């Protein structure tokens, strides 16, 4: 009786000192790994879904002081059997948001144009909005995107409808996919 109550007290007071079976240890390890994975997954490669459209890792950059515009990037995947189209965007940080296409020609001239009909995501395909190409242009900024923070936006697809997403904000020169941008 005495020894029983003592082992009970020990089990309650020192739950982490209690000797565990191999199965228990493996279970805890698996749970820890699953938790870690779930956390890192949501931090580094957050995803959103609307119908057949998957929106992978919306991100933006910190902007210079006083800047009136910011850019947003993401990858759109279409798991469906018909093409869809990203037609419009609204965001809490901007008075106006548009899809633009940027290009630098052989003479080093940068051009930027609104994509009036939106971006098509082919059936079973994907489109990457990234630096130097398609991007979302946030204009008439109400608040500046700050490094390490995130902001909300709503994407509207022709078929998949509306989906709320969150853009994570990186460094001013961050996340370039071409090598050698030094950061």
């Amino acid at each position, binding site marked *: 009786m005495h020894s029983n109550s003592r082992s009970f007290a020990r089990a309650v007071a020192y739950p982490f000192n209690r000797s565990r079976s191999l199965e228990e240890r493996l279970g805890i390890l698996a749970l820890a790994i699953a938790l870690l994975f779930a956390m890192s997954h949501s931090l580094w490669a957050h995803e959103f879904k609307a119908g057949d459209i998957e929106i992978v890792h919306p991100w933006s950059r910190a902007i*210079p002081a006083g*800047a009136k515009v910011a*850019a947003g990037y993401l990858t759109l995947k279409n798991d469906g059997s018909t093409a869809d189209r990203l037609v419009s965007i609204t965001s809490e940080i901007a008075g*106006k948001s548009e899809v633009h296409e940027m290009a630098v020609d052989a003479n*080093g001239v*940068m051009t930027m144009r609104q994509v009036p009909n939106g971006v098509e995501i082919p059936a079973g395909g994907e489109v990457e909005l990234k*630096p130097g190409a398609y*991007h979302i242009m946030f204009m008439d900024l109400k608040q500046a995107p700050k490094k390490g923070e995130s902001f909300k936006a709503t994407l509207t697809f022709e078929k998949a409808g509306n989906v709320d997403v969150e853009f994570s904000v990186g460094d001013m*020169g961050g996340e370039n996919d071409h090598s050698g941008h*030094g950061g």
Partner: protein
Amino acid sequence: MAAKSGRAALVAIAAGAVLLGAGTVYLLSPNSPLREQQSAVVEIGGPFKLTTQDGKPLSNEDLKGSPFAVFFGFTHCPEVCPTTLWEMSEALKALGDKADKLKVLFVSVDPERDTPEFMSRYLKSFDPRIIGLTGSQEAIDAVGKAYRVYSKKVPTDGGDYTMDHTASVYLMDAEGRFSGVISYEEDSKVRLAKLERLVNG
């Protein structure tokens, strides 16, 4: 007959060789189209008189004796301009003491919106050694022409506008002569090597 056609073939080969030789000489000559780019860029640069973000005048004469890197842009630019400014800031940091010899100029192609006050605030986000330049539309047109920079106002919805413009960084030596280009999306190691070469003159 066979001898005749043989001779004809020889003549054809000889003519071909002469043409090939002449072509090679032409392509290697100073007038060659292959050198066109090189000879055109020699004319990049020239006099300018602009205003810094601190409201002070700055002309090409003030830069005599120091090599400089100059690029053109505008503060309502979502990607190219902040990225280039950020990369030049990183490069200045990486150059260490050598950066003291170098001047980095960011010239606005949008003087209407880029006042010295606005540029001063904007440039606080970058290396303080970067000099922002703006001026009257005439002064901006003149410096753009001297540096063969393309820029064009493009209207957007709602009465706003954006600017198409040359995104390259021009490298000028201590005498104000053109010495090279850093293109947009140039590898950071190449960028640094080019700036080091410019500073070491």
